């Protein structure tokens, strides 16, 4: 079929949680790339009888573009060689591109494969401001997806100076300025203060923070202060998405206490805590780890202003890639060494650490991580605030989402898998108590599209009401939910039929999602001076503004 301006998706079973539609047989009408209430009877029809119809998927946290991702790609040529992707046979005028996959696919492969899963929007979760121009260039080469990125801020030289000087308003103006010049979408905080200490040198014990009240350079700068300053700034600027927080102590036993403290530090205001699974461990260093999913989810359940994504670990190959560079040093050296390891200290803000990694069912810690993620999902009372993610490619790639959906929807399958994993650290896990919950299709629609769209403030995404972007995915219902979600029959992006009978057929360019908040421009005078004294990049060239 062609991609008509008007299309009636007729007779499908629609799951549109935002509009309270839960498995109702009805038509979805599309005109000029948008959902409309009605169409004339003679409009072209797509017979969706027996199919499940949902909005296009929205990934709230994924690493798909920018300097760190490209370092990760460069690091694993053998993975790419093992997963070569021929160019698809497209029917539109765009040049179909070949590529390579592995855990960190090329840009074209990323766009095609996300669309092939029925995802039409994704947020790159961590871009250092210095690399913003690079991230945009990669997103320009990532077809189909509407995409944006979160700008790293939380270890930034200028920001920390403002906090030290008690200049809260200027810190807020700076954040607003930075979002604008980088064409970013939201503020990302990674291990607040910890990365700054790692970059400032020295030996073990001095080069990371361990809790919210550790001192970062100046005595008036602590992780808590950084969280408070940026959390308040994001809310004062009325950004569509609040601060997106990767807490301190990622991956450490006992870190759930830090996670809860961070949530409480931002209590009463909107904040998003990412890849919560990596932050929900009990126990202590040198002692056995255990799950603390219950404690963490209890807090989340009780606090409607707090949202999270899970960062599920899936067994198989992954690439850990994060701005939390001290953590990657730990991972690279604690596992007997010999692993590939990348560290890049980045000027002004942030770092980059990369270690390729394999999560094995038979490994005690990997099994615990897998279990903790599932517990978080199954203990969540409000799916609108608990988003499905694997922190691609950290916990596994986005291609494992269908398998994850099956684990959530199919208890007998889950229990079977649970028996196969290393049980050593699962003692305190709620999974062993027999969590019987099975996600419904409506709940899957919430955690994979309606919820993340709402949390991102993307009012035209994640639903099928009139005015929404016509991003629609049609699945053939199948008892094997992994199979069902891995192979959508049709995917529409902005009204264009990109997947047809399971085949990628069109690859239009996606839209860029960015914000440009207002701020008091007085900050730029001070910034210009700061750049002249401290930066190797001209003030005018920082960020990603178009150059005449």
């Amino acid at each position, binding site marked *: 079929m062609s991609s008509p301006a008007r299309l009636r998706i007729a007779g499908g079973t629609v799951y549109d949680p935002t509009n309270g539609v839960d498995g109702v047989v009805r038509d979805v009408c599309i005109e000029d790339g948008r959902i409309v209430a009605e169409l004339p009877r003679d409009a072209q029809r797509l017979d969706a009888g027996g199919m499940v119809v949902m909005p296009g998927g929205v990934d709230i946290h994924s690493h798909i573009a920018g300097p760190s991702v*490209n370092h990760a790609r460069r690091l694993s040529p053998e993975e790419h060689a093992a997963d070569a992707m021929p160019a698809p046979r497209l029917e539109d005028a765009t040049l179909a591109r070949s590529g390579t996959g592995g855990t960190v696919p*090329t840009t074209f492969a990323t766009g095609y494969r996300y669309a092939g899963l029925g995802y039409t929007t994704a947020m790159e979760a961590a871009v250092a401001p210095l690399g913003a121009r*690079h991230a945009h260039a990669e997103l320009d080469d990532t077809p189909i997806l509407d995409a944006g990125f979160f700008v790293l801020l939380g270890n930034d030289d200028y920001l920390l100076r403002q906090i030290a000087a008690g200049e809260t308003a200027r810190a807020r103006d700076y954040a607003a300025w930075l979002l604008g010049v980088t064409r970013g979408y939201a503020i990302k905080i990674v291990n607040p203060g910890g990365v700054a200490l790692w*970059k400032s040198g020295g030996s073990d014990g001095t080069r990371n923070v361990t809790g919210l009240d550790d001192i970062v350079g100046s005595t008036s700068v602590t992780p808590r202060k950084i969280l408070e300053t940026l959390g308040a700034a994001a809310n004062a600027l009325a950004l569509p998405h609040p601060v997106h927080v990767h807490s301190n102590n990622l991956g450490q036993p006992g870190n759930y206490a830090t996670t809860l403290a961070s949530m409480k530090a931002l209590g009463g205001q909107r904040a998003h805590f990412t890849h919560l699974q990596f932050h929900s461990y009990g126990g202590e260093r040198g002692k056995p780890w255990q799950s603390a999913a219950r404690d963490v989810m209890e807090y989340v359940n009780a606090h409607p202003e707090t949202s999270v994504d899970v960062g599920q670990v899936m067994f198989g190959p992954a690439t850990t890639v994060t701005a939390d560079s001290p953590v990657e040093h730990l991972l*690279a050296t604690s596992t007997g060494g010999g692993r*590939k390891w990348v560290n890049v200290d980045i*000027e002004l803000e942030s770092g980059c650490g990369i*270690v390729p990694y394999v999560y094995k069912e038979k490994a005690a810690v990997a099994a615990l991580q897998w279990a903790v993620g599932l517990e978080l999902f199954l203990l969540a009372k409000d799916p609108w605030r608990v988003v499905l993610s694997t922190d691609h490619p950290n916990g596994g790639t986005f291609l494992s989402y269908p398998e994850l959906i099956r684990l959530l929807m199919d208890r007998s399958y889950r229990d079977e898998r649970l028996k196969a994993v290393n049980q050593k650290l699962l003692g305190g896990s709620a999974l062993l108590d027999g969590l019987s919950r099975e996600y419904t299709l409506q709940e899957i629609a919430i955690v994979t599209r309606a919820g993340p769209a709402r949390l991102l403030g993307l009012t035209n995404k994640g639903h099928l009401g009139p005015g929404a972007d016509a991003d629609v995915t049609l699945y053939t219902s199948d008892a094997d939910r992994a199979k069902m979600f891995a192979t959508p029959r049709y995917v529409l992006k902005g009204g264009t039929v990109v997947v047809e009978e399971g085949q990628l057929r069109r690859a239009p360019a996606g839209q860029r999602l960015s914000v440009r908040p207002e701020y008091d421009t007085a900050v730029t005078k001070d910034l210009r001076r700061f750049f002249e004294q401290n930066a190797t990049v001209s003030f005018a060239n920082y960020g990603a503004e178009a150059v005449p």
Partner: protein
Amino acid sequence: MTERATEHVTCLGCGCACDDIGVVVKHGRITQANNACALGAAWFGDGMVPAEIRVDGQAATLEKAIHKAATLLVRAKRPLVYIAGDVSCEAQREAVAIGDRLHAAVDSLAATAAAAVLAAQRRGRATATLGEIRRQADLVVFWAVDPSERYPRFTARYTGERRASRAVIGVDVGPSRGPRDSDLRVTIAPDDEVDALAIMRAIVAGRDLDAAERFESAVDLARRMMRARYAAIVADGEPSSAAADPDRAEALVALAQALNGPTRCALATLRAGGNRSGADAVLTWQTGFPFAVDFAGGTPAYRPARGARVLLAGGEIDAALVVGSPATLPEDVAEGLGGKSVAVVGPRASAATFGPGVAIDTGVAGIHECGTAFRMDDVPLPLRASLPGPPAALNVVRTIRERLGARTHE
């Protein structure tokens, strides 16, 4: 208006990509490139470049030249796309797209630093963007390189200030010597270099060993680096008098990584200009591989030992598209292109010495054309146009790509 100044211009004269150049244009010519070093000033020149379009040596219209280039490429049995210097990432992206469309071999100037790239692929990296080295390093070790020759402003911009709080050590390896004004010099015989690096790494890892006396200064250097709060090692990634030794490149990475146990350390690899680092980045994000990519099988394959140089020397290539300035081509690549059916799109294409069938002069990225380029440390920078020039490389390459039409599926 006869005088115009453009500020914050990025120079691609070397990999330093200094972005603080003020370019003054009078009567249509560049009269000043403020802040630029001599190499940079020469790179900007007076901004005058040829604007010729030639087919088989004769002047032709752009339309005819583009048609001829597309025809030559489509007819090729074993085409090569080579990304040379002084084009933007935007043009490089189109060049790789052509390679993909044609099932061609694609290579670039980034291949000159292959030893360092391959070492990083085997082990990873411990590095930093240059600004962070300037900010943090209290010890800088120049390993067998004096940047003042090929990277003139490197020390001034990225390691030079705050001498009081920063020690500079020059390591001399045979004729490859560290900076003349180093606070301390360490001499290592060329044959001992890789062993010396291994011994240093063992010391850093806390292993006891009885090193031969001739390694004493290397052992001392290792201890000194461990005492630093943040040590930087600066090494040259480009070919020099010594052959690029993969073991040496890997030993440097391993030492820098190991130093992050007792202290912090970053290895900075010097790379030449012309936006070759951009070619590395673009190829990596589009294909998964940084250079020497072969689309012959319909998908990108990595052939680091069979790059453009080897394919040309082996007589495998029958036609080529060069995107970029032919003057920047490595000698053996330029030689290998002789006698082949070649189209060149780039600055001073008409001056190519190997007699290309099609030559389309374009502007120079960063002088006549805007866009994006990468510094040697992979930092992206905007390119600014200071004066108008011949057709933009991006537009010409894109038009050729469009002319090739959609992919044919066999």
